[in-house]
């Protein structure tokens, strides 16, 4: 009975995650466009904005690493993070790493011609890396859910 319930809840968690992650990835990246279109100054509101982005980045990174669903029991989370999910996550991290490296190379080239602050550079690399990993993980999970 308990095992059946765990399977149903793991299925529910997988579906929610597959729906939410690509949306979160797009939101995470698009929100940063606002930051880059109007760079932060030294006002209180800018510090709050940056602080919120940093917290969101840590939460997204933890969600990617652990599979999220922290309100579910451990047995459900373990089932939802089964073999296929772990492979999807590894692939997502690979994409995220590659995207971050491409961002680093692009930034290096840009800084040859334009000054670029180190905090802005870190912001950009983190956003690209985490955003790409979120998108890839979400898309792989959605594809796996098709016809399920």
């Amino acid at each position, binding site marked *: 009975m308990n095992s059946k319930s765990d*399977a149903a809840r793991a299925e529910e968690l997988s579906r929610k995650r597959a729906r939410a992650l690509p949306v979160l990835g797009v939101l995470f990246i698009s929100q940063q466009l606002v930051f880059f279109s109007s760079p932060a100054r030294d006002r209180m509101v800018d510090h709050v904005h940056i602080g919120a982005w940093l917290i969101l980045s840590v939460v997204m990174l933890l969600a990617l690493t652990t599979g999220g669903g922290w309100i579910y029991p451990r047995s459900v989370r373990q089932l939802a993070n*089964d073999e*296929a*999910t772990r*492979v999807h996550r590894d692939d997502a991290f690979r994409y995220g790493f590659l995207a971050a490296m491409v961002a680093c190379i692009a930034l290096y080239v840009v800084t040859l011609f334009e000054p670029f602050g180190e905090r802005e550079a870190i912001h950009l690399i983190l956003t690209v890396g985490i955003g790409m990993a979120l998108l890839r993980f979400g898309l792989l999970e959605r594809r*796996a*859910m*098709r016809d*399920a």
Partner: protein
Amino acid sequence: MPERLYNRLKELRTEAGLTQAELAERVGVTRKTVNTVENLVFTPSALLALKLAEALNVPVEELFWIER
């Protein structure tokens, strides 16, 4: 031509009268994983392949084969 792992999972599961969810529960994975193995989207580990064969009561080589 690259090697690819094929399977008769859907056919043997249907013959056994099991749904994807029931088979998934027997081997301790989600329905999504069974679905991706059936659709050749995901290549299972040796451990999962053996568990699937055991759950369907067939030898693993009857369930999976390599095509070159």
